[in-house]
């Protein structure tokens, strides 16, 4: 199967090159047949990459340890699901997975969006150009089908840190997000190439962008959840370069999702939207570059390889081609409209874009600053969480404020009368909330500002929901029905608001981290320790083997006051394939108020157990916020009745 896989990948590379060249040549020479063969190449490419992927999956599941990739990332004792996840656990496999997703998306685009006849040749060429880069890497630099000289009896096994359900979902969702942004990028390139620079390319890709954003969001959330339960330090975001690399395209894509509305409604920000999607695409590739170049140390890094310069070259080439096209098209990109007022919803969107891009810039600058410092000063420095927290918390709070102001402002121009009328209720609720929090003893300035802005934003959004429902109720609908109809009639707007509510909950959860507390305790069997309202009694430790590890599990009974509320079992495991690296499996008791998070740091020779006990307030709000955010995205994604027909008929009427 390895030979078939190699052959398929090599052929996919050639077909990708053909898929890149044929539509461009076809357009240049006016030969439609050549253009059409470019679309056929997209299907052929997907088929070939699917064959290669199937070959790798077969090798993984058959435990073909003669395959270097299989020997590096699986072992005999690895379960089915983690064996499946080994597909994307290593460098070559993850690149193949990327190529498979990309070619699969390309097929969907050719199949579903062929109505955009003028754009499609350039869309195909861009997608196949990107696929050519990835299949080139798989063909010439790192093959998932390389053989080892001698077949080992067993594989090295999957890194125990990756043996967590979160890791089964985190990389695929992350990749779905990264790869998904290639589609709007390809349409943007096509729009520039064909001079079809109105909002057609934005309408054609709105759902793709939203889908990519949704998956990237979930990729980040799964990563946070994995870090929280698996890494055992009590946090979920360490501002690691690769975490940052996922946040940057998320921020620019979020800005893009907002600013495209201005182009659709007012025919403004055409250049800005193109710039945003170009950067979103480049930043998506940048994350992959970081993990594979070794230029920055990261917990996510793959083994060092020669891929860094190739990725850097690809990013540079993409940026050069995109910005040259943009520069050439600048005269055709003049906006038809201008701002009517600085106090308007358009204006708030502009500032929201500014803050989001500012946040992306601050993360980018912090991530690459060690390299800059070494180049300029010749001094090695680190840029870690203390820096990122201090610089980005104010930016995040400014964003929260803008989220609250936006629903209060009318499109075009908000009169002072309407503005004061809209602000009154949210401001009143906010003042009462802030006073209550201060009275209850909330003294941390950052947390107080964060919670206050969260209340303001939630109040302004809920007021907008309420007013909309009341207008419908005046036509005889009951309030719940009016509320449901309101959302049903404008998925995009109210889905978006729901996403904002999810973000508020996420912010609240993050603000809760400011009140985390921690202590260490060394306990003998039967001894207890107290922390805040909790008393923890150490009942002893058990050691037992499992199929893949030697497990040491401590038992702690947790009391709140006199009531026994939980029995927790933090573990410290030695995996058979990675004995040099003991793994902690934390025990967590979650409530709406806080998480009780216990790490078994070690066992002493004298029978004592060393625990780190952390109380993380409001953690659950983060996960609930993530679910609300997803629900909002799904609502915003859901087609409204007749929308697709309207878009297509509009295109067909306008098409030459």
């Amino acid at each position: 199967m390895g030979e078939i896989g190699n052959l398929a990948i090599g052929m996919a590379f050639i077909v990708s090159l053909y898929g890149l060249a044929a539509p461009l040549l076809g357009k240049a020479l006016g030969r439609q047949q050549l253009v059409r063969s470019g679309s056929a190449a997209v299907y052929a490419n997907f088929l070939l990459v699917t064959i290669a992927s199937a070959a790798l999956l077969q090798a993984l599941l058959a435990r073909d340890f003669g395959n270097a990739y299989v020997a590096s990332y699986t072992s005999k004792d690895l379960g089915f699901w983690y064996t499946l996840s080994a597909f994307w656990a290593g460098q070559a496999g993850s690149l193949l997975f990327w190529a498979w997703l990309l070619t699969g998306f390309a097929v969907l685009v050719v199949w579903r969006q062929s109505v955009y006849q003028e754009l499609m040749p350039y869309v195909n060429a861009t997608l196949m150009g990107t696929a050519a880069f990835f299949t080139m890497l798989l063909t010439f630099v790192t093959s998932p089908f390389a053989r080892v000289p001698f077949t080992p009896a067993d594989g090295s096994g999957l890194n125990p840190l990756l043996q967590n359900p979160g890791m089964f979902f985190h990389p695929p969702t992350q990749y779905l997000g990264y790869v998904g942004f290639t589609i709007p990028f390809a349409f943007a390139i096509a729009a520039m190439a064909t001079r079809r620079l109105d909002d057609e390319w934005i309408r054609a890709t709105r759902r793709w962008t939203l889908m990519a954003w949704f998956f990237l969001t979930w990729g980040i959330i799964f990563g946070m959840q994995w870090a929280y339960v698996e890494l055992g330090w009590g946090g979920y975001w360490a501002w690691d370069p690769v975490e940052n690399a996922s946040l940057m395209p998320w921020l620019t894509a979020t800005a893009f999702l907002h600013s495209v509305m201005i182009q659709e409604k007012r025919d403004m920000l055409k250049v800005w939207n193109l710039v945003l999607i170009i950067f979103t695409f480049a930043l998506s590739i940048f994350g992959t570059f970081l993990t594979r170049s070794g230029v920055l140390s990261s917990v996510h890094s793959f083994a060092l390889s020669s891929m860094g310069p190739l990725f850097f070259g690809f990013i540079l080439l993409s940026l050069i081609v995109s910005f040259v096209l943009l520069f050439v098209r600048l005269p055709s990109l003049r906006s038809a409209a201008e701002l009517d007022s600085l106090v308007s919803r358009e204006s708030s969107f502009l500032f929201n874009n500014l803050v989001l891009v500012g946040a992306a810039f601050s993360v980018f600058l912090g991530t690459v600053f060690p390299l800059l410092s070494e180049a300029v000063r010749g001094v090695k420095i680190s840029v870690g969480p203390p820096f990122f927290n201090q610089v980005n918390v104010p930016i995040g709070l400014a964003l929260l404020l803008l989220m609250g102001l936006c629903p209060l402002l009318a499109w075009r121009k908000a009169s002072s009368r309407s503005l004061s009328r809209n602000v009154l209720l949210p401001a009143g609720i906010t003042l009462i909330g802030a006073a209550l929090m201060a009275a209850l003893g909330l003294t941390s300035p950052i947390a107080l500002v964060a919670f206050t802005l969260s209340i303001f934003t939630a109040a302004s959004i809920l007021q907008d929901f309420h007013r909309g429902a009341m207008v419908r109720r005046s036509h005889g609908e009951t309030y719940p029905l009016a509320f449901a109809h309101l959302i049903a009639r404008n998925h995009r707007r109210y889905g978006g608001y729901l996403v904002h509510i999810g973000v508020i909950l996420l912010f609240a959860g993050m603000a809760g981290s400011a009140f985390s507390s921690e202590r260490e305790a060394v306990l003998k069997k039967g001894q207890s320790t107290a922390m805040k309202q909790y008393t923890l009694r150490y009942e002893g430790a058990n050691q037992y083997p499992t199929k893949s590890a030697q497990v040491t599990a401590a038992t702690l009974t947790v009391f709140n006051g006199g009531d026994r509320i939980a029995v927790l079992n933090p573990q410290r495991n030695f995996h058979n394939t990675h004995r040099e690296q003991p793994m902690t499996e934390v025990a967590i008791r979650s409530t709406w108020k806080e998480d009780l998070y216990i790490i078994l740091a070690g066992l002493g020779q004298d029978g004592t157990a060393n625990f780190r006990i952390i109380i993380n307030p409001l953690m659950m709000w983060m996960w609930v916020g993530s679910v609300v955010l997803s629900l909002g995205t799904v609502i915003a994604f859901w087609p409204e009745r007749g929308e697709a027909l309207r878009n297509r008929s509009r295109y067909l009427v306008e098409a030459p």
Partner: protein
Amino acid sequence: MRIPALLVLAIVYLGLTAAPHAHAGDRGLASAFMCQCGCGLTLASCTHASCGPRDQVLGEIAAMERQGRSPEQITAALVATYGEVILGAPTRRGFNLLAWWGPYGAIAAGAALILGLGLSWVRRPRPVVPAAESDLSPEQRNRLERELRAFQD
């Protein structure tokens, strides 16, 4: 726009003057220094269950704390031993100020651009376009105005 701008400035000030803290709360100095094992994380968040470099630096910090040294003295001693790379955040001087203030400078420049362009657009006189004849009856128009007043989109 003056009040939001002042509020943002106040938030920026609060953020920059707040004591450094990691996400997992106050872990003392362990959150302020980077682990030297190559994980790229702080001493408080190093992912290794057993980590020699982390335990060594934590031991040094604990010893200096027992000697009654201040956080500033401990920081100076660690920088002298390991170099600036041990610091979780760059110092606030010289070239490093670019990292600290660059993002705010960029945001401020962007805000100035939006305000400048926006003001020039807003102040530009626009041609008056006569309104098209409406098909609405006076009753429908009254109702529309009433609803628009109640729900301004």
